[in-house]
């Protein structure tokens, strides 16, 4: 009798769980459907074209050519260079935006009118369009940076252009990182800090042994998101360094090949390869961060 009652309770729990999960999935469905409609399905539809000699997107003429496009693109030193530029941009941008975002989060996570105003100011650049941010910064570089430091704008120098674009991206997105970190900081129970203080931990020790480990979920979110944004970098070079080879990113390379140069098959193969790299890198980074996560 007791067994039967327990069984009924367990079944009831399962039904409730399933209902909750079903409702959650229903909430996810619109976003997923939109994502699938505008990103996933077109991308999957595009994969077969990467195995063809398709030239112009307004032409129906295409023949299967196997892995020819992939082999050609892997050997293409200009595609490799574009990937190196993209990776360099991503590393500078991801580290810069996260370090500064965390620093500002630590400074501004306490509630006060001043902190709230500062947070709003810090977040504002994130609301500007990428191209607008790039154009504004092109003037900052020429009219402020050059005047203050007596140096030419980094956007006009091949050796500095990637870093120059990364600075723009850091300025724009560090406010977003800051907000995620602030949410993470607020989720850390105050008891942990009290216990650490009682154990004699100083500020640095509390930060490294309490704050950082409990902030790992925020790192996972920010680092992987910015990694994906960085690897898809397109708008900044398009807006301010279109004709510099040193600023060419993988996304620009793909855009040019598919739409500008009528080499759609080759461009599509490059896009598939970039996506694979992006997924792998994101997966690796997420794996390492998830492994370091601790529960509060």
């Amino acid at each position, binding site marked *: 009798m007791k067994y039967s009652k327990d069984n009924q309770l367990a079944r009831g729990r399962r039904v409730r769980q399933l209902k909750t999960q079903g409702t959650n999935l229903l909430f996810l469905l619109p976003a997923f459907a939109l994502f699938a409609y505008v990103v996933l399905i077109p991308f999957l539809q595009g994969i077969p074209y990467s195995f063809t000699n398709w030239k112009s*997107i*307004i032409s129906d003429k295409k023949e299967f050519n196997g892995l020819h496009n992939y082999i050609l693109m892997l050997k293409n030193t200009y595609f490799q260079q574009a990937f190196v530029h993209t990776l360099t941009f991503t590393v500078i941008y991801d580290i810069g935006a996260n370090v500064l975002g965390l620093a500002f989060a630590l400074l501004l996570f306490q509630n006060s009118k001043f902190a709230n105003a500062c947070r709003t100011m810090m977040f504002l650049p994130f609301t500007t369009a990428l191209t607008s941010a790039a154009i504004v910064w092109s003037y900052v570089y020429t009219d402020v940076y050059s005047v203050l430091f007596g140096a030419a704008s980094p956007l*006009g120098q091949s050796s500095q252009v990637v870093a120059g674009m990364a600075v723009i991206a850091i300025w724009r997105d560090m406010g977003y990182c800051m907000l995620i970190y602030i949410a993470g900081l607020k989720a850390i129970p105050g008891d942990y800090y009290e216990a650490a203080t009682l154990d004699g931990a100083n500020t640095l020790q509390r930060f490294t042994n309490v704050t950082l480990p409990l902030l790992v979920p925020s790192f996972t979110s920010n680092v992987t998101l910015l990694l994906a944004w960085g690897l898809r970098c397109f708008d900044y070079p398009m807006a301010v360094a*279109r004709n*510099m080879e040193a600023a060419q990113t993988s996304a620009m390379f793909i855009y040019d090949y598919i739409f*500008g140069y009528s080499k759609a098959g080759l461009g599509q193969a490059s896009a598939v390869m970039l996506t694979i790299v992006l997924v792998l890198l994101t997966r690796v980074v997420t794996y390492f961060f998830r492994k370091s996560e601790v529960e509060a």
Partner: protein
Amino acid sequence: MKSKKFVALLLVLVMALTMVACGSKSTETPSTTAAPKADAPAATEAKGEVKDVQITVFHYMVQTTKQAGLDAVEAAFAAEHPEYNITWDNVMYNQGTDYFPQLQTALASGDQPEIMMGNPGLYPDLVEQGYVADLTDNAVINGLGLPSGDLGDVSADGRIYGFPIDFKTWGVFYNKKIFSDLGLSEPKTYTELLNACQTIADAGIDPWAHAFGDAVFGDIEMRNYIWTKALAAGDNDLFSKLMSGEAKLADYPYFAEGLETWAKRLQWMRDDAMVNDQNAALEVFTSGQAAMMYFGSWGIGDLEAMIAGSDFEYGFFVEPIDDEGSAKLNVQVDQCFMVNPNAENYDVAVQFMEYWVTEGGSSWSAVSLMPLLNGSVADNAPDIVKTLASIKGSGNIAHYGDFTAPFNSQFTTDWRTYLTAFAESYSNGSNQSPEECLKAMQAKFDQNIAENG
């Protein structure tokens, strides 16, 4: 729980309806892309009815004066044709970034714009795929009596595919006051030009305002040398041979000579030379911070607007390329428009373009200040425009249309990228040699050719 489910279901429903709405657009497209009805205008005229017409014009005229010029010629045509109630849809993109990609995407998705700006030689895909009408037998174009170069610029494989409107050229625009204060006159030789640069620099003024932030500026600063020398040597098939791999850059000595000549005046570069776009460089020039700017006639309207009300005066000379007086005015058809035979209002579009290249040209020129191919210039155009028109009329020019084919978009991009890199090396002191520049450029050309195989 029930309300959560309801909200979720509602969101799904809205999403589904949105997608159905988006998807249904493509099914409607064929009806808007019907073949032109040749007898439509006559039929409506006979009945005295006003026909509703929409004309979509894809163009890359980023200059405000040209956009105003397009509006003016459209208004003039509409006034001449009360039988049409025309809705104009002018779609502008930047040629250097997204014009052709956007045009291709529009065509691939089923849109059929009536008029598309561009030299058909640059857009062979449009011609091959039947998006461009063959105008070889068009009586109005043939009646213009244009020279071979003008027709070459609107042709591909010997057939005419575009309506040529006006021409562009480029050279050195200079500040008359600075030249006059320093006792300088327009240089006739390259040595005189270099001496003038030195005199200006010695007076504490920057000789040049550069705009290498726009890719075209490296290109136009080299064209004068390359086009003039190539056409003089009879290398009319220069670009087609380079694109096919039949010839290499090193086979033509004037590429290295041209770079060497250019490098001599690249020693005078401002800190902002590599990042300025056209407008930023024009500001430097018109504010008197720099005495000269290598610039094109396409921006004269914007330049005039910028200096309106000020006492700024500018002059123009063709840049000398040597001390033997070999330089010639470079000419290229500027505004050129193809007409889409698949568009719904193809006939009206052709009528409009025929109007533009004839009596409508004056409406265009009066606002855009561009010199027309037939030699006429608006009365209100600056003297410089009239001078350019008269030089073109003399025939002592180097015309891009006299080459058998232009560089395609990938070769054009590479050509410009490596010229910009060459200029950059003189701004940062690394001073690339002409051979290094050509070697890097040739390697990229070879890559392009290998991909075509």
